[in-house]
């Protein structure tokens, strides 16, 4: 281990010497091009110069949750994967801080009139970290591999808007017949089953990322764990990977805009106390997703930062189990909730929300407005009305209610939320609710099977469109755990998919949400959350990704 590191240093030193020599020669030649700092120098000096550049630039160490799953965009991606994707992979397009689309691996794109054919023109100066060019085949590679059912891709259903993909996944058609075309190295064409107004938002999913055709194949098991084979086309690439211990990214020398950090190290840590302590001792520079008590400990200090997440926490009522088969009972339980009462318990990094789409969601049709502005308050706390509704349903003052069990996964602040709800339902409705904490995976299993009477639910948007939330409760959707079916809701959702006018579409989605939340009362939205960050105050210039989390490629170190 030691020897290896020394070797790296020696090579870096050698590379540095080479780079200086190259620079000196260039100066002698008087060519006058001052762009020798980034891509040009890297192309001339090769890997060693790149290592030198990375070694010269600061290393930043992050405390990360333990890794889980693969680093293959076609595979079982999990928590750390998204950090890897943000740093090491570049999709066709990217979100900016406001949630708008920015060209990334694609320079430009266009759709046909009805939104069924989408053509992307890749930039010709897109490079993998080994210097080879990024081509349309690399994008097709990920898609085809994800459609192999044995691969176990977590985001394969994000591909099903493309012609032939669902059949290929179910092995009733060939994967070679799917609606993705590569007319040349720099053109990628998608043929969709039906118009899709939010197709661009899908492009953020792992299954739309490129994976290098040279190494990434489903036969070559483990390529994603091996830094020699796992190439990046983003600002960084995987330079070292110690499973369970750490992962290291260094600069992709061929990337067009070189970030300020030379090396990023993620240390996999499991213990909150360990992470806070390591931040205090300076052994890590950044601790994301910190517990809420950090807000008090670091109040007023420059280390503290927050990044809002596109997540909604809500109560899901099982409409197939008494007493929640009665819409009046569902409404009564929804109106009895005091959201502020919950926030008072769980901390100020949460904000109350009464809509299914997070209140902070940036509107696509009304720039500058949020979903909260458009939807307004959908559920207003109203004890008198709640009591009346419960009495109308035949349970005056909570008398005669069947046994009630609220289930939540035993993690984070869920117990605090559950106990607060229990107390509120008791006070307002006179209902005695039993709490049932379950291990996370058991809870998911039971919820999926429709066994839970009413339960905590949480949904983090996979991409920046209301459909990532609202699609869940369409008839027959795999995530529709309570088998709710409303034909009006379904038809609005279907129509909204092909509505290419953002303003009209937003109206439709607001209406669908209204049916779900205030008409049929399937869910009771509670609150949104932010990630709490501890960041070394010397690191500045980072910004919040619209879906949550920090983007580091534009960050700098100030002394």
């Amino acid at each position, binding site marked *: 281990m030691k020897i290896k590191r020394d070797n790296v240093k020696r090579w870096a030193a050698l590379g540095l010497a080479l780079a200086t020599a190259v620079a000196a020669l260039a100066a002698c030649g008087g060519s006058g091009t001052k762009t020798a700092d980034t891509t040009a120098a890297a192309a001339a000096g090769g890997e060693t110069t790149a290592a030198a550049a990375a070694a010269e630039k600061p290393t930043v160490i992050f405390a990360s949750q333990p890794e889980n799953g693969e680093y293959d965009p076609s595979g079982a991606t999990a928590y750390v994967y998204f950090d890897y994707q943000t740093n090491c992979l570049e999709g066709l397009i990217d979100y900016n801080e406001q949630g708008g689309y920015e060209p990334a691996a694609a320079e430009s794109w266009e759709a046909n009139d009805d939104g069924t054919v989408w053509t992307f023109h890749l930039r010709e100066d897109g490079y993998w970290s080994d210097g080879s060019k990024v081509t349309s085949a690399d994008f097709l590679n990920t898609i085809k591999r994800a459609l192999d059912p044995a691969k176990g891709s977590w985001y394969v259903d994000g591909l099903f808007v493309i012609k032939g993909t669902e059949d290929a996944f179910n092995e009733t058609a060939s994967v070679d017949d799917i609606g993705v075309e590569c007319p040349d190295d720099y053109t990628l064409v998608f043929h969709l089953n039906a118009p899709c107004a939010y197709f661009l938002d899908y492009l953020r999913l792992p299954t739309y990322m490129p994976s290098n055709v040279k190494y990434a194949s489903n036969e070559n098991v483990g390529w994603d764990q091996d830094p020699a084979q796992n190439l990046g086309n983003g600002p960084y690439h995987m330079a070292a990977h110690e499973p369970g211990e750490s992962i290291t990214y260094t600069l992709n020398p061929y990337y067009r805009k070189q970030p300020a950090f030379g090396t990023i190290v993620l240390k*996999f*840590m499991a213990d909150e106390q360990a992470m806070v302590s*390591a931040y205090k*001792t300076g052994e890590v520079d950044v601790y994301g997703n910190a517990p809420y008590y950090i807000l008090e400990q670091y109040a007023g200090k420059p280390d503290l930062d927050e990044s809002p997440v596109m997540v909604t926490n809500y109560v899901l009522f099982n409409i197939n189990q008494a007493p929640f088969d009665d819409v009046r009972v569902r409404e009564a339980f929804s109106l009895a909730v005091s959201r502020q009462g919950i926030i008072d318990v769980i901390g100020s990094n949460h904000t109350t929300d009464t809509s299914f789409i997070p209140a902070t969601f940036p509107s696509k049709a009304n720039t500058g407005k949020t979903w909260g502005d458009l939807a307004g308050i959908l559920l207003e706390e109203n004890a008198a009305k709640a009591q009346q509704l419960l009495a109308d349903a035949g349970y005056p003052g909570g008398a005669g209610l069947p046994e009630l069990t609220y289930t939540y996964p035993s993690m984070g602040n869920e117990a605090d939320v559950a106990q607060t709800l229990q107390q509120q339902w008791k006070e307002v409705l006179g209902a005695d609710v039993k709490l049932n904490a379950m291990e996370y995976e058991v809870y*998911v299993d039971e919820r999926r099977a429709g066994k839970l009477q009413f339960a905590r639910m949480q949904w983090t948007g996979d991409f920046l469109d209301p459909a990532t939330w609202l699609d869940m409760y369409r008839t027959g959707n795999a995530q529709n755990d309570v088998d709710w079916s409303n034909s009006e809701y379904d038809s609005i959702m279907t129509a909204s998919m092909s509505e290419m006018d953002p303003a009209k579409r937003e109206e439709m989605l607001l209406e669908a949400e209204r049916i779900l939340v205030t008409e049929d009362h399937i869910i009771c939205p509670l609150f949104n959350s932010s990630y709490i960050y501890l960041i070394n105050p010397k690191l500045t210039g980072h910004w919040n990704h619209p879906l949550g989390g920090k983007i580091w490629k534009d960050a700098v170190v100030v002394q």
Partner: protein
Amino acid sequence: MLRYVLKRLGVGLLTLLVLTTITFFMTKAMPGSPLQSKNVTGALLEKMEEKYGLNKPVIQQYATYLVNILSGDLGISYKKPSTTVSDLIRKTFGPTLRLGLVTLALTLVLGVIAGIAMARAKSNFVKGLWLSGLTLGVSVPNFIVALLLLVIFGVQLRFFPILGLSTPMHYVLPALAQGFYPISAVARLTQTSYEDVMKQDYVTFAKAKGIHPFTVMIRHVLRNALLPVITYMGPTVAFLLTGSVVIENLYTIPGMGREFVYAISNHDYTVVMGMTIFMGALIIVCTITADLLCALVDPRMRKTL
């Protein structure tokens, strides 16, 4: 002697088989599927279960598993699909072993020295001081010790680093935290048996012969006084080498204790079973070795074997 060793090994193997069987059926009885997660849909879940053979009858799965173990194949992790269980054990056992050995050395050296010092202490006050220190050592749980050491010597005083095991300095705090209990236990054992042996006639005789007190201590007293310590060290070595989840979590050591608990909460059946078998085997080997060492030190026991 050979018969004894063979007999112990045979019983050990049988124990392993029972252990494997119980673990296998207990993991199967756990609610929740290892493949269940937020984004995996029904159809995909079925395909995955088919791939891992989870849709077959439990007895058939058990038979397949036993056959695979005999050929040294512990299967692959459900949660880290490109990692085999054997690789994971090899990978995580390294840090645990290194920390375990350091703790072991610390335990023997500090424990025995403290035990002798206590036994030889003349004043009752000093003895009482030692005793209260050691009682604290065996009664304070290691997560408190680990946390106190981390906060005082890591965060406040900054004497030692607290993240990982990359330099010798990194070993100090976790080894002390892990060794706190065994050091105290060894010291107590050494003290008691040292005092017993000191009262024996052969020690008085050796002293009367004019043998140097140091030689008496090493050859006549310690050799006999350490017998209970060796017996105690058998399971302790096993305990240290299987890793402590508390310490590995707090000091971010990518060891086996941490991985094991992580695998349980993740429903990573194959990893749970593979590690249980590995740890079971380790405990059996350590206990047998301790017994054999005892026999080497004590001629009386050698005869009875």
